[in-house]
């Protein structure tokens, strides 16, 4: 990923910045230019709470380049409390103990780095909500 492309996504990656339709109130993540519900182009910025329920997940055992030392790891879609689905890596967990319906919270984590000399990319990941 190029630096400017990552930089443009920082509000979403770092702070879960979403869009809320001024017309019908639908929340979109990533924020959409046109509301898929009512077609309005008027949006406000909102931040997701970071809490939700695990809707589905898969376990990556053959990882892509740059993730070799993390396998096996889980990728999941979490139904956030605001009603929108968000996909991210699930970390700090026993992948074989995950269950659909688990309560998840987001944590700020490293996602990848561009080699030994490039930038470090940070973003949200999910962790099971165990109160720590």
């Amino acid at each position: 990923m190029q630096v400017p492309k990552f930089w443009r996504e920082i509000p979403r990656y770092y702070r879960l910045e979403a869009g809320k339709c001024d017309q019908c109130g639908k929340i979109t993540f990533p924020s959409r230019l046109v509301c898929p519900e009512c077609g309005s182009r008027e949006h406000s910025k909102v931040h997701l709470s970071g809490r939700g329920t695990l809707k589905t997940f898969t376990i990556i055992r053959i990882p892509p380049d740059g993730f070799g030392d993390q396998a096996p790891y889980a990728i999941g879609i979490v139904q956030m409390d605001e009603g929108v689905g968000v996909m991210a890596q699930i970390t700090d967990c026993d992948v074989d103990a995950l269950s659909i319906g688990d309560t998840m919270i987001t944590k700020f984590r490293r996602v990848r780095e561009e080699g030994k000399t490039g930038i470090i990319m940070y973003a949200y990941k999910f962790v099971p909500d165990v109160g720590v």
Partner: protein
Amino acid sequence: MVGIVGYGTQIPRYRIRVEEIAKVWGADAPSYKRGLGLNEKSVPAPDEDTATLSVNAARNALLRAGILPQELGAVYVGSESHPYAVKPTGTIVSEALGACPHVHTADLEFACKAGTEGLFITLHEVKSGVFPYALAVGADTSQGAPGDALEYSAAAGAAAFIVGTDRLIAELLHTDVFMTDTPDFWRREYTHYPEHGGRFTGAPAYFKHVSGAALGIMDKAGMKPQDFTYCIFHQPNGKFPVQAAKQLGFQEAQWLPGLLSPTLGNTYSGSSPMGLAATLDVAKPGDTILLVSYGSGAGSDAFIFRATERLTEVRGMAPLVRTQLDEHRVFIEYGTYAKFRRKILKAE
């Protein structure tokens, strides 16, 4: 009146026991445990570093402070393991919290004292009226060379404090400092692991500066050890802070709530700040707290706080230190530890 408005911590879930490290290097675990007063230490996950721990601790501090991130006038991150050699950790932390762009940001370094450097600066900055609120974080993912005594203690964790003049949970009563040029521990540029002076890190370094700062602030405040409800001294291991406390005339009940190193290890810049956070987790309104940090090189910052009524109202809004430290731990073997700490790398 100035003081702490909110506090929060983050401790990684992974742990490695002293026995596991000693087994690999053929060392005698019981003598290490006895000599250092350590049983286990925290280990950061591969996707955790000083920036991530700082952000997650600061978010907990914001929950307790009850302020908006945009109200922060300054963000300071003290660490000796900043992810970049050149690019401030504070920029990442400020952006992740939503404090940008009108926020003064700096990364601080002073070995294990960098966390209280930020606390010292923010307290006096806010007191002088420059900013209404400011954030100070002490965080580290410290490394010890394989087989070195430091490998048994070098741990990871972060503590964050939001400072202000209203909504106080702990009022600042006094500060003091004690600093000299004492080369007890260092890391040269382009080297991966620090070196230290062995026993030289004790009497002329840690004990001289910790007791110097503690005696200095007690003299300034006109207070004696028995006037404090709690005390926290920097925790490079489980032995030094207890020895220092005893030498100064404190009792076990005063240091026990803030003593985390036996099962946490030394979180360097996060060490004494995390001890303060653990103490705030149990303190009652009116309790007086002495905090003395120590950073090799060498110096100590000292603070006296008095807990307010609001502390008990906000305590439950974020995880307690003991919850993060004692619950849901995942113990790992040395091989996993070596991978997590990038001592061994998978061929790409």
